[in-house]
């Protein structure tokens, strides 16, 4: 029996989900250790976690393009490189960044686990309200980009819950009087994520907004086969972002975070699979379907 098998048995996870947790743990540890070193090792100029955020690349892009290579404060070339890597990754494989890499996504998964351990209730957001709230990501994205361009500052840095938590400023430079807005936002998001799965990702994450838009172009998608699917909707239950996978026609929503839990939950072989192929954006797809009718 291998270590993997033993871990699987102890945690009650499939091999794929164990691999996902380990990947999340790896990237999460990288960010935490980078942050610790940045705070503790003052003899060297070590990078802060600001430098490892792809969203920083989107935030600084306008300034970089219009100023001949200047960055918004706290952002660097690394942010642009990561943003470019993210764009390539999303166009090729959708939002798997959120499900496998993002440390803040991993933290929310951890909070969901804590909720289960503590036997706290999960708040189910009604489908209609859920759909409306998902637009919050685009509002956040537009607002943050506008504020960054207008102020030439990394405006969101003072409120960003990812930064507040993972920069470890609350541990090394706790200052309630100065940073209370950031602490309040972070606590609110943590509390929300404790009761609503992937609360931040679903309703507020500006990077999620970018990924959701670009995800419509992704080549690798989870697709539902109408011929093989019997509509049992077993696949809907484990989805952390509450996508109606059973209604996918055929590709699941671009909000998918690629966690693959639905694929694993599906009891019908061939009904739900990861496939490679171009997917028309919803607007064009709708037009084509209408013409076919």
């Amino acid at each position, binding site marked *: 029996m291998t270590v993997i098998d033993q871990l699987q048995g102890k945690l009650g996870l499939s091999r794929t989900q164990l*691999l996902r947790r380990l990947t999340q743990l790896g990237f999460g540890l990288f960010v935490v250790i980078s942050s610790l070193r940045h705070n503790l090792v003052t003899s060297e100029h070590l990078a802060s976690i600001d*430098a490892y955020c792809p969203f920083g690349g989107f935030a600084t892009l306008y300034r970089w393009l219009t100023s001949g290579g200047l960055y918004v404060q706290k952002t660097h070339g690394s942010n642009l*490189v990561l943003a470019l*890597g993210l764009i390539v990754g999303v166009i090729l494989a959708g939002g798997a960044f959120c499900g*496998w890499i993002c440390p803040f996504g991993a933290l929310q998964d951890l909070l969901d686990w804590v909720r289960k351990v503590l036997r706290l209730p999960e708040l189910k957001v009604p489908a209609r309200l859920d759909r409306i709230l998902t637009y919050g990501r685009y509002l956040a994205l537009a607002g943050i980009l506008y504020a960054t361009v207008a102020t030439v500052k990394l405006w969101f840095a003072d409120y960003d819950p990812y930064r507040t938590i993972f920069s470890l400023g609350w541990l090394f430079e706790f200052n309630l009087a100065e940073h209370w807005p950031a602490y309040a936002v972070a606590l609110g998001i943590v509390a929300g994520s404790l009761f609503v799965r992937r609360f931040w990702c679903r309703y507020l994450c500006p990077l999620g907004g970018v990924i959701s838009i670009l995800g419509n172009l992704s080549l690798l998608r989870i697709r539902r086969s109408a011929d093989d699917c019997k509509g049992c909707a077993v696949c809907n239950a484990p989805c952390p972002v509450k996508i109606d996978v059973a209604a996918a026609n055929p590709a699941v929503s671009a909000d998918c975070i*690629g966690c*693959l839990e639905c*694929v694993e939950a599906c009891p019908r072989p061939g009904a739900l699979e990861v*496939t490679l192929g171009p997917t028309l954006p919803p607007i064009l797809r709708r037009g084509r379907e209408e013409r076919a009718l």
Partner: protein
Amino acid sequence: MKPIRVNKLVMPVVVVVALLGSVWVAKAAGLWQTSGRDQVLLDEGGQPDPAGIKGWMTLQDVSDTYGLPLDAVYALIGAGDEVPADMALKDLESLLPDMEVSLVREGVAAYLAGAWSPEDGPYGAEAPAAVEIEPTPTPGPEPTVAPTAEHVPQGQGQGDGSGSGFVLPQDGSRVPGAEIKGRMTLQEVVDYCQVPLDYLVAELGLPPDVDAHARMSELAGQFGLEVQTVRDVVTAYQAQP
């Protein structure tokens, strides 16, 4: 085209490879930069250029990078032993009233050129005599403040390195953004660099009713403004056709 079924793990593998691959390519191409502190600005002779001194640098950094004894750095800014060597210059600006990063740049340059030594006392301690100079024409708002002895720019060739170090071109051309000093007011930047005040205020994220006659070092304390940001914004404006 009919989609092809693939192994489900291809999805995460592709995303991880795309992200880490972009980092690897950027590192190989020398484009991976995680801090503005990675590089030391070198002059034409390949030596560290004092113009590259930044607010985040500590006294020890200045000493190590430019080869000054630490005592000389202390003497240059007029700091006592109570100031720790690992304190950043920008933090010292709020502690020492006459201390400015731009003065440290000039002082280090003067030291390296043999024009200043620790025996001379703190660099730029004495204000220079006021020199009357007509402001250059500007497309922005008319200057509303008369130059005072505190912030009068020195004429070409009249600077001795002991004042603000600000040199106004005599030919009426605008002052390059890189030469902006922390002791200048926003209005002076507008007048001498020929940048519209509205543009400057908006780009720096300052409130529209900001006091244009306050020194930038004062605005730094109020709004977290960094002089380097002002330089960048002005340089970008001046680079526009």
